[in-house]
């Protein structure tokens, strides 16, 4: 029985259109939406790292969480919970971010880049699929970060409230924050417009449970293709949108261009694009969802996902403070630092340890 879940498709279409619109309105090319990049920019605007080109208070992150929270409240699905291995989740969030930033994009941006014809993203997708596959091997053997518990409502409000405060403070007292004057951080759609678009996307994503990791994971584990339709919808909308509108020179919406070279905010260090997204894929499976899904769950009151988001922001700061992020536009040989290579490989060891120690203890004969 193959029943297409139209809510997921609609959600994917909404994300695709939103990403095209946000690039046309000023966000960087092939980066209308990128959870990893935007959390990295937030880490930058807060002064947690000093990479001058990637600092901005991205309203998309705030909007996604708020949109999901409002929808969850309306549907009676908002529930504060937590306590499922929070420290491990923090670490996993950081590793997912470090892997994603070597490639220069979260799983969502990977699809947007692929939709724009950037074949480096295809290499990354192969790594992502492998990472998810490895993660599912442990899930099948009973891996879990243990159960969570219902908590006071205030716990579920921590991340949404912090983001609102940060957003309001940014608008009222911009001098307190660092803002890029050039580079990707300087390119952004108008704050309020981006906020509203992201809120709509967050609401859709809450309803449909859209997740870049979940689609491939469920297909591999249960032959359940529900979430995969959303993943494919994003790709199709992006390709069509770029073919149709890319020539109109709207903002930073670039035309569809197939190839490896001269792609926006990208590099062609294939081995490390592959391994970076393999790390992100495996880590995301252990977390239970991609970076986008973590934001949506945090909006639903999930404190464990909020901790993963904090971990991702910390991971972004570590990435830039230690020179781990991929260097956009550099030749393949120089795009990924030795530090990054060491950390990526160590990251796999850490994921393996986390995967093994969280398998069930008792074994049935």
């Amino acid at each position, binding site marked *: *029985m193959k029943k297409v879940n139209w809510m997921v498709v609609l959600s994917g279409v909404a994300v695709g259109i939103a990403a095209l619109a946000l690039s046309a309105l000023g966000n960087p090319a092939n980066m209308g939406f990128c959870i990893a990049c935007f959390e990295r920019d937030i880490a930058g605007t807060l002064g947690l790292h000093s990479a001058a080109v990637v600092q901005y208070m991205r309203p998309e992150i705030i909007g996604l969480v708020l949109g999901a929270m409002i929808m969850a409240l309306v*549907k009676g*699905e908002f*529930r504060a*919970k937590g306590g*499922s291995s929070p420290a491990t989740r923090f670490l996993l969030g950081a590793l997912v971010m470090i892997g994603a930033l070597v490639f220069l994009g979260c799983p969502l941006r990977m699809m947007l880049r692929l939709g724009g014809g950037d074949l480096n993203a295809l290499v990354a997708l192969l790594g992502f699929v492998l990472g998810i596959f490895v993660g599912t091997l442990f*899930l*099948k053997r*009973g891996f*879990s970060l243990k*159960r*969570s*518990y*219902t908590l006071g409502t205030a716990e579920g409000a921590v991340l949404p409230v912090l983001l609102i405060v940060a957003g309001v403070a940014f608008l009222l007292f911009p001098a307190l924050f660092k803002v890029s004057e050039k580079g990707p951080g300087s390119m952004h759609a108008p704050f309020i417009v981006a906020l509203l678009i992201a809120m709509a996307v967050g609401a859709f994503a809450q309803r449909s*449970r859209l997740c870049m990791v*979940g689609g491939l*994971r*469920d297909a591999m*584990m*249960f*032959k*359940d293709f*529900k979430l995969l339709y959303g993943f494919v919808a994003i790709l199709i909308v992006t390709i069509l949108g770029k073919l149709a509108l890319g020539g109109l020179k709207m903002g930073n919406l670039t035309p569809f261009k197939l190839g490896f070279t001269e792609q926006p905010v990208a590099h062609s260090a294939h081995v490390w694009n592959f391994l970076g997204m393999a790390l992100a894929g495996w880590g995301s499976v252990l977390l*239970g969802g991609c970076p986008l899904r973590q934001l949506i*769950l945090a909006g639903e009151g*999930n404190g*464990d996902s909020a901790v993963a988001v904090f971990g991702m922001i910390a991971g972004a700061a570590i990435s830039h403070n230690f020179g781990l992020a991929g260097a956009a536009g550099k030749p393949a040989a120089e795009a990924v630092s030795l530090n990054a290579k060491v950390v990526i490989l160590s990251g796999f060891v850490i994921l393996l340890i986390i995967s093994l120690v969280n398998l069930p203890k008792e074994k*049935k004969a």
Partner: protein
Amino acid sequence: MVDARGYSCPIPVVMVQRAVKAENPQNLTVLVDEQVCVENVTRFAKASGYSVTVTRDGDDYRMELKK
């Protein structure tokens, strides 16, 4: 009986999958506490040939799977 309360998806689905694989029960009770898990377990159960009835018990959902 699979008590998957407190677990986030896809773990509850994996727990049900493992229970079905191990014992292939005619009837299985599954407890979950998230709407999304009800949806996911239902999809998996139906694909595995079970009928599903769900009753809500406070914050929890009790799912009865029958072959």
